[in-house]
C-alpha cells in the first residue's frame, strides 16, 4: 500500500508546484501593470527636479497608485492622469509624453471636465493601447489632435466658438456645399442620404476623409458625388462631422452652450429686433441712438450693465429690459464693440435685401447640392430627360410664375421623367420642402431665384 502511495506524493508535489507557479504568474501579471512604470518615471523626474531636501523627500514619498477623475454627471471615470501625471504642472511644459503639461486648465479645469470628454478614448482603461482606444470593441478611440476641436461642438455651438475656428469653418462648409440637399442634420435636410445626427460617433476621421473624396470606395454603391474640397475645407468638414455625435451633455456642461462672442451677439441683435429702434449704417429705426460708433462712446462694462438693466444705468430711458443673461449681454456688447472694425453688420439678415437672404437660404437647405452653385446646374442625374442632369435654375423666371414656382418648391416632384424608360429611373428628385422651408423664407428664396436670370436676356416664353 505504501508503494502505491508514493506515486501520489509525486503527483501532489508536481501538481502543487504547478498550481503554485500559476498563482505566482497570475500575481506577477496582476502586479506588473504598465502604468506603474510611468509613475516611477514621474517620481524619478520629481526627484531630479527637487531643489531642496524637503522637496526631495516629498518627491520620494509620491505614492504609486491609480489616479482618477470621477465625473458622475458625465457618467465617466477618467484615469488618464494615472500616466499623464503632470498635466496640471506648468513646469512640465515641453516634457515628452506621458509627462507633458496640458494648457487650458483655466477654461476647462480637469477635475471638472476630465479628459475623454474632449479627447475621447477609454477613460477607465489603464494601459496605453486600451486607454487610447485603438483596440477592438472600443467605439470611441482618441481623436487625432488635429481633430480635437470637434469635441468643442459637444458643449458649445459650433459657429460661435472663437476657440474652435476650424469647427466654425466646418459648419460653414457644410451649410454652403449643399450637404443638406440629401442629408438631414437636426431634422433639416433631404432624405436621399443617411441622417448625420450621430455620424461623429460612428465614423472615424480616416473614413470621413475617404468618403468625401471618393464615397463609393468606402460605401460601395453610394450615390453621393465625390466632393472637391480643398485640403483645409476637407479637414474642417471632417471635423464638423466628427462633432455630430448626438450625445447630449448634462447640466453644468450644457450651460456654456453659447460662448459670448460677436457672432452670437449678431444673432441676438437680429433676433431681439434691436434694429427696430437702433440703426447701423443708416438702416434701422430712429427711436434709439445709432449704434455705429457706440464702441467709442461707451465702455464695454457700461454696455453690459445697460443691456441687463437699462433703467438702472440710464434713468428715464425708453429702452425695455429684455432680461438678457450675463452671457447674452456680453455677446451683444462684443458685437457692438466690434461694429466699427468689422463689417459684421452687413451680414445681419434683417439688414440684407431679400435676394441676399434668398441666396443664404439656397445654401442652407442644400439646393446647391443638386442645382449647382448659383443655380447654374451641371450636377449629373443619370437617365433624367433634362440632358441627364439636374436642371439649372438660371432661367426659372421665364418658365414659372411666382405662384407656380412656390407650389413646385412646396410639393416637389417625386417622379422625374426618364430619358430612356428601360434604364433605371434617375436617382435624384426634387423633395417636397413644405415642412422644411419656412413661409417667409420661400419669398426670399424666390426673389433670389428670379434674380438669377442674366440682365437683359429674354428667351420669349
Amino acid at each position: 500500500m505504501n508503494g502505491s502511495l508514493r506515486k501520489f506524493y509525486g503527483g501532489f508535489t508536481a501538481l502543487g508546484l504547478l498550481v503554485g507557479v500559476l498563482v505566482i504568474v497570475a500575481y506577477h501579471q496582476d502586479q506588473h501593470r504598465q502604468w506603474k512604470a510611468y509613475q516611477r518615471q514621474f517620481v524619478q523626474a520629481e526627484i531630479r527636479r527637487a531643489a531642496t531636501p524637503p522637496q526631495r523627500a516629498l518627491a520620494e514619498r509620491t505614492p504609486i497608485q491609480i489616479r482618477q477623475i470621477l465625473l458622475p454627471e458625465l457618467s465617466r471615470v477618467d484615469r488618464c492622469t494615472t500616466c499623464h501625471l503632470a498635466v496640471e504642472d506648468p513646469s512640465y511644459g515641453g516634457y515628452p509624453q506621458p509627462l507633458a503639461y496640458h494648457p487650458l486648465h483655466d477654461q476647462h479645469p480637469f477635475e471638472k471636465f476630465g479628459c475623454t470628454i474632449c479627447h475621447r478614448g477609454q477613460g477607465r482603461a489603464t494601459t496605453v493601447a486600451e486607454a487610447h482606444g485603438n483596440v477592438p470593441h472600443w467605439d470611441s478611440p482618441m481623436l487625432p489632435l488635429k481633430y480635437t476641436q470637434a469635441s468643442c461642438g459637444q458643449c458649445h455651438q459650433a459657429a460661435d466658438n472663437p476657440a474652435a475656428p476650424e469647427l466654425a469653418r466646418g459648419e460653414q462648409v457644410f451649410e454652403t456645399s449643399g450637404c443638406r440637399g440629401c442629408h438631414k442634420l437636426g431634422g433639416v435636410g433631404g432624405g436621399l442620404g443617411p441622417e448625420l445626427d450621430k455620424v461623429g460617433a460612428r465614423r472615424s476621421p480616416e473614413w470621413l476623409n475617404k468618403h468625401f473624396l471618393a464615397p463609393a470606395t468606402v460605401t460601395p454603391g453610394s450615390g453621393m458625388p465625390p466632393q472637391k474640397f480643398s485640403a483645409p475645407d476637407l479637414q474642417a468638414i471632417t471635423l464638423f462631422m466628427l462633432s455630430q455625435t448626438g450625445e447630449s451633455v448634462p447640466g453644468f456642461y450644457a450651460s456654456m452652450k453659447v460662448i459670448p462672442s460677436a457672432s452670437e451677439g449678431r444673432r441676438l441683435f437680429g433676433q431681439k429686433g434691436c434694429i427696430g429702434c437702433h440703426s447701423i449704417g443708416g438702416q434701422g429705426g430712429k427711436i434709439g441712438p445709432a449704434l455705429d460708433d457706440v464702441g467709442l462712446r461707451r465702455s464695454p462694462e457700461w454696455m453690459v450693465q445697460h443691456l441687463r438693466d437699462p433703467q438702472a444705468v440710464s434713468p428715464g430711458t425708453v429702452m425695455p429690459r429684455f432680461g438678457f443673461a450675463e452671457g447674452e449681454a456680453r455677446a451683444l456688447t462684443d458685437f457692438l464693440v466690434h461694429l466699427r472694425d468689422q463689417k459684421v453688420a452687413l451680414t445681419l439678415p434683417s439688414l440684407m435685401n431679400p435676394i441676399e437672404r434668398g441666396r443664404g437660404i439656397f445654401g442652407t437647405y442644400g439646393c446647391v447640392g443638386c442645382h449647382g452653385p448659383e443655380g447654374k446646374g451641371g450636377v449629373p442625374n443619370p437617365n433624367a430627360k433634362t440632358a441627364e442632369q439636374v436642371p439649372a435654375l438660371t432661367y426659372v423666371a421665364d418658365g414659372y410664375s411666382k405662384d407656380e414656382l412656390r407650389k413646385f418648391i412646396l410639393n416637389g416632384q417625386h417622379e422625374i421623367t426618364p430619358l430612356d424608360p428601360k434604364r433605371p429611373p434617375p436617382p435624384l428628385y426634387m423633395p417636397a420642402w413644405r415642412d422644411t422651408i419656412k413661409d417667409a423664407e420661400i419669398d426670399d428664396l424666390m426673389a433670389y431665384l428670379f434674380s438669377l436670370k442674366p440682365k437683359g436676356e429674354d428667351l420669349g416664353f
Partner: protein
Amino acid sequence: MNAPLPKRLWHWLERTRVGRSVFRVGLPQSNLERSQAMVSSFLLHVQPAKVSRHALKPGYTLGLGLISLYLFLLLVGTGVLLMFCYVPSTDRAYDAMKDLQFVVSAGLVVRNMHRWAAHLMVIFVLLHLCRVFFTGAYKRPREFNWLIGTALLLLTLGLSFTGYLLPWDQLAFWAITVGTNIAGYAPFVGLRLKFLLMGGNVVGQEALIRFYALHVIVLPGIASLLVAIHLWRVRKDGGLSRPDEPADLVAQIELSQLPTNKTYGLMELARGTTPQVGRNPEDEVFSWPHLVFREVLLFLAVVAVVLFLAIFWNAPLEEMANAIHPPNPAKAPWYFLGLQELVSYSALWGGVVVPGVLVLALVLLPYLDRGRQGVGRWFARERAVANTIFALCLVVAIALTVIGSLFRGPNWSWQEPWKQPPALTERS
C-alpha cells in the same frame, strides 16, 4: 522517529489538545483509523470507508462528475468574489467589467477563471452525461439519480445562460436576445415564459436584474441542493455502477435490508448498498487514501487548468450593449447554437420539437430502457442499439453546433471560417 519535519510537526499538532478536538482521528495509521477518518470528518463522511477498485479506475469514470463538481465549486468561489464588484444595473454593469480589468486587484484573472470554468462546466457536465449513458449507469436502481443529473444539466445551462448577460456588452445582449427568442417559440407558454424571464419583451434593466437574481442565488441554490442529493444518491444506490454488481442489489435496496456482517458496518449504515455486499471483499480498498488522494490530485489538476486558461486568455468583452446596433449575425451562446442552426431552418423544429423531445427523452430514458445488460462497461455489446442511437444524436448535435458556431456568417449565410468575411465594420 526519522520522519520529515512537516510530518513530525503534523503529528505534534494532532496530538495537542486543540488538534485532537479538531481532527479527532488524526492521520490514520491502521485500517480501523482509516475507516474512522472517513466517518468522523464532515467533508469525508459523504463517501464510504471503502470503495470498489472498479470505481477508482480512471478509465471508467474519467473523473467527469468530480471535475464538474470542482468546476462548480470554483465558480461559486470566483462568483462570490465578482459579486463584490458587480452592480446589476445597465448603467454600471459594463463599467464594472472595465474596472475589474483595469483597477481591481486580480479582478481580471478572477473574471477569466469564472468565464472559462463556466464554459468547461457545460462541457464536462455534457461529457459526464455521455459517460453515464455509454456505461449504462442510469439503469436500476439509479434511475432517479439520472433524473437529478438531467435537472443538473439544465441548471448548468441555465446558470451559464443567465451569467452570459451580466457583462452587459454586445456579445451578452444579443446572445440573450437570440436565446430568449428561441425560448419564445415554445407553443402557448413560450412568450409568457420569455416575458416572465425578462420582465418585459426586450432585454433591458428588468431582464438584467432577473438574470442576476437567478444567476447568483436561485439557480446556484437549487444546484447546490441537487448536487448534494446527487452525491448522496450515489452512495445510497450502491456506489458507482460496476459490471459485477450482485444481482440482488436492486432487491436489497428496495427491500430495505441492512448489512450486518462487517466490523466496520456501523460506519456504513447505508441501506443494503455498501461495498461489503459485493461478493469479493478483496476488490475493495480503503477510501483513505486511495479515493481521497485521487480526489485531491484531480482538484489540483482542475485548478491548474482553469488558472492556466485564465492567465493566458482573457474573457471576451465587446462594446457596451446597444439595442439599436445588432451584430450580424447575432449568435446565442455556443451551447445553443445547434438549436439556433435548427431554428434557421424551422422555428418549430429548432425552438420546440427538438429541445422538447431531447429533454423528454432524457427524462424517460431510464424508465424506457429497462434491460439489465451491459451495466458498468463502456460501449457494452449488449447495449449496441441504445449506444448507436445516442452516438448518432450526439454527432448530429455536435455537427449542428459546429456549423452554427463556425460556419455561419452575416444573415446566417454559409461562411467558411478560414475565409475572410466581407467587411461589415463601419469604422475603418
